[in-house]
């Protein structure tokens, strides 16, 4: 598992155009299902999510429990619903950290290309990339304890260089454009130009990358909570459900199958949506690299 190994798949729009509506639709539909399930769980779940019924444990799917019960006899459907909430919250906030910190850094670096600040920011980015993400995440939780908040921070840190690089790359090409030159001649400061002209023009890039980092965040959260470093019980999380299921695989395969499928479908949905969005928003996006 890596938190930041993947840049947006550089897919030429021409090739994708034909598949565009379908991937966007499938992706959006899958994502909506999980977001809706998460939202619904605030007001209703089939069973209380921490309702234990030990004699009724490890039951396969049935009418009473559509996705079966876990090793404490809890309803897996209810746990998947609330778990979606955990995954979405962690991934979303981690993307937020990446954007809030990374985008201004990227803008600043691009505004003074080759300058001292640019050098520092890009070297720091390289450095973060060089760290094995999962090891650092484990260290962070070893220092500050395991919790959802620390998982968010750990994932968020690795989102920063992703957004910083992307913004810098996008902004650099914009700085060469006529309309920016015009603004400079008009005497606008670099900060103003960045905020008023550059940022709106890299927004599309950011949305697409945001979707992808969001799906990576869900994978990362699952991985961290699988090794026990994410949200703590009784808050359900898909990764911990998998960890709990590990020794039950031979007894009741569904307890390991279902949370895994939930992760796969959510991530798949978000990735498809990201691809679709990229084609929709900016057909010219090819390689978002510096």
């Amino acid at each position, binding site marked *: 598992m890596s938190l930041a190994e993947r840049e947006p798949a550089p897919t030429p729009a021409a090739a994708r155009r034909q598949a565009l509506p379908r991937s966007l639709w499938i992706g959006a539909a899958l994502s909506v299902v999980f977001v809706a399930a998460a939202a619904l769980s605030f007001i209703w779940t089939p069973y209380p999510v921490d309702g234990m019924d030990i004699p009724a444990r490890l039951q396969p799917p049935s009418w009473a429990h559509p996705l079966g019960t876990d090793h404490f006899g809890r309803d897996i459907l209810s746990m998947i619903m609330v778990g979606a909430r955990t995954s979405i919250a962690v991934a979303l906030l981690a993307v937020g950290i990446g954007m809030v910190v990374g985008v201004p850094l990227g803008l600043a670096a691009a505004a003074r290309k080759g300058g001292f600040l640019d050098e520092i920011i890009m070297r720091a980015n390289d450095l973060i990339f060089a760290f094995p993400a999962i090891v650092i995440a484990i260290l962070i939780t070893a220092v500050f304890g395991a919790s959802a908040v620390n998982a968010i921070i750990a994932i968020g840190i690795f989102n920063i260089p992703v957004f910083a690089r992307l913004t810098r790359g996008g902004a650099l090409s914009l700085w060469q454009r006529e309309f920016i030159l015009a603004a400079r001649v008009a005497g606008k400061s670099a900060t103003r130009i960045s905020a008023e002209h550059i940022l709106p023009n890299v927004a599309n890039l950011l949305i697409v990358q945001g979707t992808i980092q969001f799906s990576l965040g869900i994978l990362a959260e699952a991985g961290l909570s699988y090794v026990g470093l994410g949200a703590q019980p009784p808050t359900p999380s898909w990764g911990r459900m998998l960890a709990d299921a590990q*020794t039950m695989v031979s007894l009741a395969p569904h307890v390991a199958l279902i949370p895994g499928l939930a992760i796969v479908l959510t991530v798949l949905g978000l990735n498809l949506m990201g691809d679709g969005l990229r084609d929709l928003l900016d057909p010219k996006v090819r390689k978002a690299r510096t």
Partner: protein
Amino acid sequence: MTKPLRLLAASALVLAAGLAPAWAQRTDVTVAMQLEPPHLDPTGGAAGAIDSVLYSNVFEGLTRFTESGEIVPGLAESWEISEDGLTYTFRLREDVTFHDGTAMDASDVKFTLDRARAEDSTNAQKQLFASIESVEVVDPRTVQVKLAQQDGMFLFNMAWGDAVIVAPESIGEIKSQPIGTGPFRFVEWVQGDRIEIARYEDYWGEAPALAEATFKFISDPTAAFSAMMAEDIDAFMAFPAPENLPQFEADPRFQVLIGSTEGETILSTNNAQPPLDDRRVRKAIAHAIDRQAIIDGAMFGYGTPIGTHFAPHNPAYVDLTEMSAHDPERARQLLADAGYADGFTTTLKLPPPSYARRGGEIVAAQLRAVGIETEITNLEWAQWLEEVFTNKNYGLTIVSHTEPMDIGIYARPDYYFQYDNPEFQALMEELNRTTDPDTRTEMLQQAQRIIAEDYVNGYLFQLAMTSVAKSGLRGLWANAPTQAVDLTGVYWED
């Protein structure tokens, strides 16, 4: 298949595999366990895995534990205790040699005991040697230990893995090349995978049936399950996933050994932290807990309910579980009496073993049912030791206290329970000076009652020892009076 055909097939197999003739007994065994020792010095670390591999197999002490927890002579064949109970004179066995060929004599015993209680000693159980005042070599086979005060536990203490006899000649390399006096000598340690030992031909006692043995370390429960099912290993001591045991029980290739450990699994409570410093609150917690649900839910039914901090298989045990029977109504009432009608919130910090993690989730649900909210934090052992054990920064935690006969920890007010009861402390002091067995039993029972009545901790269950072995393997210890996988009596049966 007809009989001759089967014989033919069998001998063909034997020939093909190039093995010993089919009628010979197997003399090797591969025993797996979950944890790997960090090093191989039983006298220099707390890790139970060190003793599991080496106790009785490679190293021996003056006395030793049997499977039932009795103390029998080890390297000392007999001893005399002076009238005042302060002088122990040990008579050592004859012709005992270390695996490097050097003789084991009284000077080695003196070296071992002096090293363990020295100022710069790194013995994890240094308190075992606290009562020793001096150790004298009388002659090569006689050693005299003088105690500063009477110590009813002295012979018991000398049976621990931390008190095994080591030699000054080999102490430097003991962590990687352990040299003891036991029936097996250390052969090889492939770190991360296994330790091999082999029969020591010059052993002073009866030679073991096994010629060689391999300890394999498999920490992952799924891997443990599949290794056992595939018969890659012959036995798994303390199998980590109780949920898989019924599958082994149903399989004629395997036997499941169920015994007891010295592990009292308790909901340790910070007796100094409000509102847990209120006996009524602790009593409410005790009544809120449904032990059977925890045993069923966390251990899949393996475990014996306890009502105090004492092993149920010990003759001195008193069953006090009724004092904290599951009664949520009563718990709510007690909370109201203590002024917490609306409940309160506390922390529940859980170390890694599954009894704690799973048990913790169940305890949290049961406490929530009477209005007590818990914030669960899962910790690694190092964090647990620092936060909970050393800094006492916790409300509740679940842990199994696996040291044998450790009720004395309740007499230490600075222990992490922070339980401070002078009456109990006085009782323990008296117990330490008492050697008469009947009086001791009486006092131990009184001690059990005091801590149960004070509801110091939530007493959950005695950890079961559940091991899986191939059906032909005999002589494995089902119980764990100490952390040991004693292979001296293990053999294969047809």
